[in-house]
């Protein structure tokens, strides 16, 4: 695979990732969010695959498969069970316009702070680094502004995708053991939060985290 193709795949994937993240701040329905997550996971897997192909690194290709399985398959599936199975939830968060505006500001901020981090590296991967940071920040932003439990989960996954993106763009991913462990951890966290969401519905009669204000000083 030649360099320009890799470069264009990487750029496309990064673009898709960023776009889906921004869209996440706009869309309210849980089902839509989960679909966007699938797209995002696929884009990430594509990115990893492209990097692996360009380097001829079999291990990285394997990781790409793993990423596709977990991020585009298992995670959305785990999240989506609520969304599609029981009831479709709409999140009441801050107004979409404000959410989008926030995402835009954060993206700019990400570019501003990531610039020195590249340290003069002009490769496509390095130039895409700010997008990773932006994804992290946008994920955080979703966590901050959404009021339903599942939406917060979505935000967490976006944040994690951002980190993974940074990892692949800057260093072709971490050592395999660490990568596996990390992936497993994230998966488990999401599963646990899902279980807690179910329990929350039992105890609080809903999944809005706004109801979680009993423990306070």
């Amino acid at each position, binding site marked *: 695979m030649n360099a320009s193709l890799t470069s264009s795949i990487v750029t496309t994937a990064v673009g898709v990732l960023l776009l889906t993240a921004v869209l996440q701040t706009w869309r309210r329905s849980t089902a839509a969010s989960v679909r966007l997550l699938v797209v995002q996971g696929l884009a990430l897997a594509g990115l990893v695959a492209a990097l692996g192909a360009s380097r001829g690194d079999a291990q990285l290709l394997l990781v790409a498969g793993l990423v596709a399985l977990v991020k585009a398959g298992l995670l959305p599936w785990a999240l989506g069970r609520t969304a599609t199975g029981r009831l479709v939830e709409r999140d009441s968060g801050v107004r979409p316009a404000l959410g989008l505006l926030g995402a835009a500001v954060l993206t700019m*901020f990400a570019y*501003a*702070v990531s*610039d*020195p*981090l590249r340290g003069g590296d002009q490769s496509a991967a390095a130039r895409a680094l700010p997008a990773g*940071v932006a994804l992290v*920040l946008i994920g*955080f*932003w979703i*966590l*901050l*502004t959404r*009021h339903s439990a599942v939406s*917060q989960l979505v935000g967490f996954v976006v944040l994690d995708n951002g980190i993974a993106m940074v990892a692949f763009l800057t260093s072709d991913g971490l050592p395999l053991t660490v990568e596996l462990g990390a992936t497993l951890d994230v998966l488990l966290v999401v599963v646990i939060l899902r279980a807690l969401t179910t329990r929350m519905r039992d105890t609080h009669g809903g999944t809005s*985290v*706004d109801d*979680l*204000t*009993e*423990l*306070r*000083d």
Partner: protein
Amino acid sequence: MTHLSFLSLATGFALVASKAHSTTFTQISAAQITGPTGIAAFLLLLIGFATKAGLVPLHVWLPRAHPEAPSHVSAVMSAAMVKLGVYGIILLVGSWLPQVARPFAILVLALGVLSGAYGILQASITSDLKRLLAYSTTENVGLAVTAVGVGMLLSNAGQDAVATIALVAALLLVVSHAAFKTVLFLGAGTILHATGERDLDRLGGLIRSHPVTTWTFGIAAMGAAALPVTSGFAAEWTLLQALVHGDGRANTTLALALPVTLGLMALTIGLGLLTFVKAFGMAFLARPRSEAAATPAPEFTSKPGSAAMGVAQAIGALSVLALGLAVGPLATAFSSVLGYSGIITSELGGLRLVTIGVLDPYALGLVAVGLAVPVALLVLVLRRRVPRRETDLAWGCGGVRTSPRMEYTATSYAEPLVRVFGEALRPTRSLEVSHHAEDHVLEHRVAFAQEVSDIVEDRWYAPAAVWLRVAGDQARRVQNGSIHRYLAFSFAALVLVLVVVTLP
């Protein structure tokens, strides 16, 4: 308060230690720290030790802690722990930071003098025996620190001999206070145990059921009131001599500070006298003012601890007297420790300040005995001739005894003082007069209430406590239960860190 003390001491020591690069006392002395660090360290250490010592305005823990603590704990606390504070101050100004301390002599002196006067004023008007003793601790410590302050001032003026005498006085004060205050607290404990009361307004007449406690308490009270020939008297005499022999002509500060100190100290002594007359008289003399005091538990029970208590009190009382009698050797020892030879033991074992004066308890006692002998002979003769007769009441203003409520109480005893020092004590009074329904001139009922609280506590500490509570209430908003707020904190931290990282 203990913590305030601990923290200021810790920070102070931290400053000193970081300058001296060592934590041993000798190294600190050798380091000769000066400058702003020295001043900060000095002030912090002073606050720390002053709190430990219970000096005004850092005394508030004393009258609160003592009434709650068991009496023997109070005794130890008062005799030992508080002393650590004084010892610390002496070390601080004498050894660790003498250069820095010099300009603050007036501050130390003011702390001491004010503590003395304020402490004894509060002690004189309270009717709670243990609170009284606690405030009296503040007074005694105040006097000791006064002596330290006087010593500092005098040595600033180059009058080192007199300054040393003042320091010796401080040490004597500390030692004698340890002796008599232990006995007083043990006595208070015995009273509390016997009657369940520590309110002097409800005590009385214990001299009949508790002779040992009465006499030991009485002797210790004499020490506290600085009557001859107890150790307290010798100590205060030494300090007074130092004051009078300091040469005020040296500078204006001295010319004003010495008389003011003497005046306030004299007031302290006078009020101390009143305080302990009140404490002793109200607790042990007259008739019981309450049921509990009328039927106290016996002084010595079969319980093993009770005799030991009596022995402890007796030993303490003896040591109060012994310290008074042995003041000469004691002071000589102190002065030789300080490297001063102007204090020696006089011929009969008394205390002689060379070129200043002599205080000899033995000689004084001999003269008194000599004068008492003819009186005693006369009494013996008269006793045989005219025996004493028991009667209900000799005068009693018509001879009517109604109820113990007619007696003077500790509160009424101190009432004139509350009036005289109304400006300083700010008592709260309320007077309710309810009139008869038929006639407004006839009064049905009059209720009067008066309460004196610690104004330092009310004016300084209470507002601080209120402020802290408000701050605490405001701070609760931080933790209002909203996960979004919590995430926002983390997010803000993340953004800030990112910005910091990017900055070159």
